C-alpha cells in the first residue's frame, strides 16, 4: 500500500512526469486521429438523415462531444485543483492550469456549433436555451480561472487561488445549470433541443461516442503538451531542466 503511494508521488514529480508525458503524447495523437476518422465517417458518411431536422443534425457529432468535453474538463480541472490543495503536489496545479485553455476552447466550440445549428432549426443564431446559456456561463468560469491565474505572479499562489476558484465553480455549476433550466422553462424558451431531438439510432450513438473519444484523446494530448511547457517554465532553475536543456545544445 505504502509502496503504491510512493510510486504515485514519484510520477507526480515533474522530473519523472516530463519524459513520460513526452512519450505518451504521440500515442494520444494517434488514438485521437483514429477515433476522429472513424467517428466522423460514421457521422457524415454512413448515418441516415434525420426525419425531423434533415442533414443539419449532423452538427451534433461535433456539438455534443465539445459540450461534454467542456464540462468534463472542468470536473477534471477541479479534481486536480482539489488534490493540489490537499496534498500540495506541484504537478496538480500545473495540470489544472494546462487543462483550462482546452476546456475554454471546447466551451467556445460548443457555443459556436450550437449557434450554427440553432440558425436553421430555431431561425436564430442565439436562443436562450438552457444548455447554451449554461455553456456560456461555463465559458465565463473558464475565462475567470485563466484570468485569475494570469494575474498572480507567484505560480504557487496562482495555483492555490485557482484551485479555490475551480472548486467553488464546480459546486456552483449544478446550481447554475438548474437555475438556468428553471428560468428557461418559466419563460418557455426553445422547445427543440439539439441533444434530444433526433431519435438516437444506434449508428448515430456510435458516431457520437467515437467523436467524443477523439476529443478526449485530443484533450489529453494537448494538456500534456501544455503541461510540459509549464513545467519547463516553472522549473527552469532546477537541475533536471538545466540538464535537459544542456543535453540539447
Amino acid at each position, binding site marked *: 500500500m505504502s509502496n503504491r503511494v510512493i510510486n504515485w508521488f514519484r510520477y507526480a514529480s515533474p522530473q519523472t512526469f516530463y519524459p513520460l508525458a513526452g512519450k505518451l503524447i504521440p500515442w494520444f495523437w494517434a488514438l485521437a486521429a483514429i477515433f476522429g476518422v472513424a467517428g466522423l465517417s460514421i457521422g457524415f458518411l454512413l448515418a441516415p438523415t434525420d426525419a425531423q431536422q434533415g442533414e443539419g443534425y449532423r452538427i451534433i457529432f461535433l456539438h455534443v462531444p465539445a459540450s461534454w468535453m467542456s464540462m468534463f474538463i472542468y470536473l477534471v480541472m477541479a479534481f486536480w485543483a482539489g488534490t493540489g490543495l490537499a496534498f500540495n503536489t506541484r504537478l496538480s496545479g500545473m495540470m489544472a492550469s494546462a487543462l483550462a485553455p482546452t476546456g475554454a476552447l471546447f466551451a467556445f466550440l460548443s457555443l459556436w456549433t450550437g449557434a450554427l445549428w440553432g440558425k436553421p432549426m430555431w431561425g436564430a443564431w442565439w436562443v436562450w436555451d438552457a444548455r447554451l446559456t449554461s455553456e456560456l456561463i461555463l465559458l*465565463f468560469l473558464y*475565462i475567470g480561472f485563466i484570468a*485569475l491565474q494570469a*494575474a498572480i505572479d507567484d505560480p504557487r499562489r496562482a495555483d492555490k487561488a485557482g484551485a479555490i*476558484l475551480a472548486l467553488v465553480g464546480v459546486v*456552483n455549476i449544478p*446550481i*447554475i445549470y438548474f*437555475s438556468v433550466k428553471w428560468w428557461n422553462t*418559466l419563460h418557455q424558451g426553445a422547445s427543440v433541443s439539439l441533444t434530444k431531438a433526433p431519435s438516437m439510432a444506434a449508428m448515430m450513438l456510435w458516431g457520437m461516442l467515437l467523436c467524443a473519444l477523439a476529443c478526449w484523446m485530443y484533450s489529453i494530448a494537448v494538456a500534456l503538451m501544455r503541461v510540459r511547457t509549464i513545467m519547463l517554465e516553472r522549473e527552469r532553475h532546477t537541475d533536471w531542466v538545466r540538464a535537459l536543456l544542456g543535453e540539447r545544445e
Partner: protein
Amino acid sequence: MLVLIRAVIGRDLRLAMRRQADIVAATFFFIIVVSLFPLGVGPDADQLRKLAPGVLWVAALLATMLSLPRLFADDHRDGTLEQLALAPQPLGLIVFGKVIAHWLVAGLPLVLLAPVLGIQFDLANDALAVLTLSLLIGTPALSGIGAIGAALTLGVRGGGVLLSLLVLPLYVPVLIFGAGAVDATVSGLGPQAHLSLLGALALGGVFFAPWPTAAALRIALE
C-alpha cells in the same frame, strides 16, 4: 464565538460609519443606474413594469460589486488582516462577521431603496413587496459569494475588473431566482418557490462561502 462575530461586525460598522462616503456612493450608483434605464428604453409603463425586476436586480449586483474590492483591501493594506488571520479563532468565523457587516452596509440600503425605485417603474404593490423581499433574502448571498472573489483578487493586479469577472457568473442563480420571484408575482404564479430557492442560496452563500474565503485570504497573506 458569538462575541467574536459581534466584535467583527461592530468594528466594521463603526469603520463604515466613519467613512460614510463609500456607502453613499454605492447607494447613489444603484439609484442612478436604475433611473437611467427608463431614459434608455422609453417611458412606456407596460414595458417598464416588465423590465423592472431585471433592472433592479442587475443594478443591485453591480452596486454590490462596487463595494466588494474594499471588503478586505483596507484591512490588508494596514496590516489588520494579518492580525485577524492570527487571531486564535477560525478565520472563517471572522469572515462570516465581515460578510454580515458588508451586507448591513452595502446590501440593506439597496433593499430599503427598492420599493421607492420600483415606483418609478410603475410596479403594483404586491410586486413591490415581493421585489423588496427578494432583495432582502438575496443580497446576503451576494455579499457571501462576493467575499470569495474579493479574497481571491486581494492584492492582485487589476483586482477590481478581475473580481467582477470571477463573481458575476456565480451570481447568475441569485439573479434568476430574485428577478424570477417578481416576475412570478406579476404573472400570477406566486413567488414562494423562487423565494425559498433564493433563501437556500442565501443560506449557502452566507454560511459556506466564508470557508473558501478564509482559505483564499490565507493564500493572499502567504
